[in-house]
């Protein structure tokens, strides 16, 4: 379990990071928390020639609200998201997501930026960021570029980042009135990837009619994806038990799980139905002002 040899450089600024990425192109890989990259390197699934360690770049670990958004620095550790009272009380869907990633020791190192940039459909943040309609900030030779999360996962294990760009920030719209979200993950054991997980974020009007809904799926599609027909079935309707059941069935239909050691495709698809129903129910309860 020894990684292949590589050259290692600690970058101390974004400019230095971008310069190194520009110089080494696809031979280079960014090391942030390393919780996905290093295991992949040990298995020789990844053999980067050049590692740019961005742990030396200061100013990328923060969680703050500004300009009507929650802004999270890419190097923010999952443990910091878990401990943030702003996240816990203002963005419970994000708290629920961070809390179920890997295990507590891994979360002391793992970063939110790495979780997204890795573009693994089994990772937890992609579905939640799809549900929240987040924006990714990428820094490159020409400065910052904003990438809507819907365009961030173009193909299998690929992100929309250019080889000379580094993910620096995640922006999440501040919750509108009467909105709520939830992330529910089903895993075999702590530390495993989800068998399936569903992220839901929705908004109700004063008459309890759903006026916006986004649903993200974890580990049941080739790339992190939304369940758009399930979303469409909710919008414009009061969220009744029947509406939840219908949307859940649509979400299951939209998922495309593969049979593996975590279960058969049929089992996983039905799990999506069950988890979607629970997540919609919890999101509605939160939108109505409930804490659960």
């Amino acid at each position, binding site marked *: 379990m020894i990684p292949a040899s590589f050259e*290692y450089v600690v970058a101390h600024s974004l400019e230095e990071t971008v310069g190194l990425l520009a110089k080494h192109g696809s031979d280079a890989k960014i090391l942030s928390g390393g919780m996905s990259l*290093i295991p992949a390197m040990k298995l020789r699934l990844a053999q980067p020639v050049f590692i740019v360690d961005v*742990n030396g770049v200061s100013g990328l670990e923060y969680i703050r609200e500004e300009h009507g958004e929650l802004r999270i620095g890419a190097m923010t550790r999952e443990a910091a998201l878990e401990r943030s009272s702003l996240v816990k009380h203002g963005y419970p869907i994000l708290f629920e997501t961070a809390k179920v990633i890997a295990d507590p020791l891994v979360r*002391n190192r793992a970063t939110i930026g790495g979780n997204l940039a890795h573009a693994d459909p089994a990772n937890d943040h992609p579905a939640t960021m799809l549900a929240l309609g987040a924006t990714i900030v990428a820094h490159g030779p020409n400065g910052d570029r904003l990438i809507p999360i819907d365009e961030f996962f173009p193909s299998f294990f690929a992100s929309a980042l250019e080889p000379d760009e580094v993910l620096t920030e995640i922006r999440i719209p501040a919750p509108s009135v009467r909105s709520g979200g939830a992330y529910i993950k089903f895993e075999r054991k702590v530390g495993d990837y989800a068998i399936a997980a569903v992220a839901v974020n929705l908004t109700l009007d004063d008459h309890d009619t759903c006026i916006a809904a986004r649903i993200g799926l974890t580990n049941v599609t080739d790339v992190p994806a939304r369940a758009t027909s399930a979303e469409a079935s909710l919008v414009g309707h009061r969220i009744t038990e029947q509406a939840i059941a219908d949307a859940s069935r649509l979400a299951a239909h939209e998922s495309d799980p593969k049979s593996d050691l975590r279960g058969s495709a049929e089992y996983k698809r039905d799990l999506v139905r069950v988890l979607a129903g629970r997540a919609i129910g919890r999101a509605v309860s939160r939108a109505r002002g409930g804490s659960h």
Partner: protein
Amino acid sequence: MSMRTVNFTINGEAKSVQAESRQLLVHCIRETLGLTGTHVGCETSHCGACTIHLDGEPVKSCTMFAVQAEGKSLTTVEGLAIGGTLNPVQEGFWEEHGLQCGFCTPGMMMTATALLRTVNEPTETEIREAISGNLCRCTGYVNIVKAIQYAQRKMHATPAPEAVLQGGD
């Protein structure tokens, strides 16, 4: 094979070691420094037998490169006892039979020591969550939880708990 010089503090002692970029921190600790209390279990970031403190936080030393320890303060299980006196967590594992084969024990104790430094009175659920990244295949965890609760009681029975739990800084 290019070697780099890496400087860090481990168990309070400043060290300067030579490491290849790809060397995992756990191998540096065990093989270069001879501190074999930190164990290599699964090597896949799951089991937690390699848990050490990195600037006071418990992390898996099999999932870091040694070169990443530059300028850091590390503590291994060898740094828990001060002057031959077991820290309360170590004493708890002794008193409550918190181990059978002992392979997971160093990592368990590092995680438990960090937990009790940050949470005053963890509930059983919080203890079990905290050690959920440390796998034990012998005990069924019951006595491990008891051992940590023993340490917690011991710390609270002492006037200055900070002074007691000095290992692991």
